[in-house]
C-alpha cells in the first residue's frame, strides 16, 4: 500500500487549471523527483498535499486515510512535512529556538537530532538563524521539517542558491533520509542534483503528470525537451 496517494486531484484558479486530474503515488521510504517547466503546477501540487489549497475534486490519502479535508496542521501531525522554496525559518531566533519550536512538546525528535548532527548545525545552536549562511539556513529548515518525525518530506527546490558542494551534501542527506525510512518528494531544476539523487522522476506539465521514469529515461525523451523549450506550435 502506498504511503501518499493523490487520486484525480483537480484544482483551478479562475480560468487557470493548476492541477488537472493528477494521479500520484509514493511508497514508504521512496525518493522521488518532481520536475517540469515553470507554471507546470509543481508548487500547487505541494500546497494541495499540505492543505494550503483545497482540491476542487479528487482525493489525497496518507497511509490509507483520506486527508483531503484535513487542516494543514492535522496533516503535519499525521506525518507530512514541507520545506519551503524560500527559507521560512525564524531569523531573529537562535538555531536552538527554531528547533525547539519545530519540536512538538519541545522534545527534539531522533531524526531531527540526527539531521542537526549530520549537517553540522548542532554547534551553531546559539546563533541567530538569520546569521547562518544561505545553505545552512536551508539545512536548518530541513531539520525543522524533520521535527515531527514525518513519514514523508516535501522539498521545494532545496538547493536553490547552494554551492555545488552543498548540493552534493544535500543529495546525500536526502538519500540517507530514505535509508531511515523517510520518503521525500523533491522539486528541482538543477539537473545535476536530480541526477545525483538517483531517484525515479515524475514530470509535470500543465497541471498533469506528463511522464514518469528514471532520470536517464527522462533526459533522453524528446517530448520532455519540447515541453521545456517549447515547440513551434506551442
Amino acid at each position, binding site marked *: 500500500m502506498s504511503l501518499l496517494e493523490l487520486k484525480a486531484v483537480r484544482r483551478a484558479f479562475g480560468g487557470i487549471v493548476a492541477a488537472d486530474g493528477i494521479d500520484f503515488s509514493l511508497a514508504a521510504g521512496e525518493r522521488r523527483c518532481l520536475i517540469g517547466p515553470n507554471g507546470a503546477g509543481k508548487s500547487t501540487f505541494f500546497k494541495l498535499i499540505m492543505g494550503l489549497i483545497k482540491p476542487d475534486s479528487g482525493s489525497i490519502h496518507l497511509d490509507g486515510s483520506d486527508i483531503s479535508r484535513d487542516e494543514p496542521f492535522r496533516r503535519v501531525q499525521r506525518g507530512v512535512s514541507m520545506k519551503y522554496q524560500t527559507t521560512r525559518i525564524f531569523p531573529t531566533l*537562535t538555531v536552538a529556538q527554531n528547533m525547539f519550536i519545530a519540536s512538538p512538546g519541545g522534545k527534539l525528535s531522533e531524526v531531527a537530532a540526527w539531521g542537526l548532527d549530520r549537517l553540522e548545525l548542532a554547534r551553531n545552536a546559539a546563533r541567530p538563524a538569520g546569521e547562518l549562511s544561505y545553505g545552512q539556513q536551508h539545512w536548518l529548515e530541513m531539520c525543522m521539517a524533520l521535527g515531527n518525525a514525518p513519514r514523508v518530506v516535501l522539498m521545494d527546490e532545496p538547493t536553490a542558491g547552494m554551492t555545488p558542494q552543498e548540493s552534493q551534501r544535500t543529495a546525500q542527506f536526502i538519500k540517507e533520509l530514505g535509508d531511515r525510512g523517510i520518503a521525500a518528494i523533491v522539486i528541482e531544476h538543477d539537473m545535476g542534483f536530480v541526477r545525483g539523487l538517483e531517484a525515479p522522476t515524475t514530470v509535470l506539465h500543465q497541471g498533469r503528470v506528463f511522464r514518469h521514469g528514471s532520470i536517464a529515461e527522462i533526459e533522453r525523451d524528446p517530448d520532455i525537451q519540447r515541453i521545456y523549450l517549447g515547440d513551434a506550435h506551442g
Partner: protein
Amino acid sequence: MSSYNSLAAPGTSASPRSFLERTGLDGQLTVFGGRWYWSLFVLVFGAAATFPIYGSVFTALNFTSFLINVPLALGLALLWGYCGVLSFGQVAFFGIGGYAYGVLAINWGLGAATVGAAVCALGLTALAAAAFGYFLFYGRVSAWIIPVLTLVLTLMLETFLGQTAGLEWRIGDAQLGGFNGMTNIPSITVGPFSFDGFSLPLFYLVLALVALTLAGLRMLANSHFGHVSMAIQEDQERAELLGYDIRRYQLTIFVIAGLLAGLSGILYASWGNFIQPTSVGLLASTFPVLWVAVSGRRSLTSVAIGTVALSALSDTLAVYSGELAFVVMGAILLFGMMAAPNGMVITLLRGIARLSRARK
C-alpha cells in the same frame, strides 16, 4: 529546553542551566533577566511592600489604583507582544469581571461570600473570553480585522450597559445603573481584612498579584507554548506547517488575557466599590493599548513599569486638568510611536542594560 543537551557537539558537556532558566523565569523570550534583574525585582517589590512604613499610607493607597491596571496591561502585552493579536476588547473583560463581581457580591452579601463572588466572576470572564475568542479565531479572519472586531465588542457592551438606567435593569438586588454604573459594591473581605481603597490589605494583595502575574507570565513566555505563540506571530503559516493548531494557541492566550483583565476589573470594583460603563467605553478601550504600546509590547517588565508610570502621570495631570491629561497622553502616544516604535520604556531599559554591559 533540556532536550537541547543533544545539540551540543559530541564530546562537550552542555553547560548546566541555572535555576532561573530551568523554571522559565529567565529565558530567550523574556527580554530582561539574570541576576541583576531579579535582585532589582526583589528590591523594588520589597521597597514597595515596606513603603507604608517609611512613607505615606495615602500615597500607597493611591498607588493601588495604578497597580490594579497592571494585570490588564500584562494580559494585552502577552496577547499583542507574544502572539501578535491587538485587542481593543480587554476593557470589555475588565467590565465583565467588575460587573459580574458587583452583581454577585451585592446579592451574596459580605464576608467569605465576596471571595466566592470574585472567583465566580473570574470564571464568568473566562467563559466570555472563551466564547468571543472562539468566534474570533476559529474563523481565521485576517489579523487586522481583530482590532476592529474587539472594538465593536467593547462598544456593544458599553452601549448596552449605558442604557440600563431604568429600575427594571437589575439582577437580584444589584441595580445595573445605566451610565451612572453600579454602586455600593462590597469590597472583598476575608476575616478581619477588607480589601478596599481605604486600607492597606488591598495594596498588599495587588502588589503580590502583580509580582505573581509577572513571574507567571515570564514562565509561560519561555515555555514551549510561549515559543510556539511567538512563532505564530512571526510567521503564521510556517507555524501551522510545523503541526500546530494556531487557533488553539490564540484562543488560550486570549482567555488568559481576558482573565487578567477580569482580575483587574474585580480588584477595581473592590477598591472603589463601583463600576461604570465608561470603564468599558471607547476611550477606556484605548488605555491598555496606550500603556502597552508606549512601554514596549515585547517586554512584560517594561509594560508593568510603564503602566504604573503612565497611570500615575495621567492621575497627576488630571488634578490640574482632565483634558490636559489626555492631551499629554495623546502626545506621548504619538511621539512615542514616531521616536521609539518598539516602545519607550523598553528602549530606555535596553539602553541602560547596554551601557552597564559596555562599562564592564
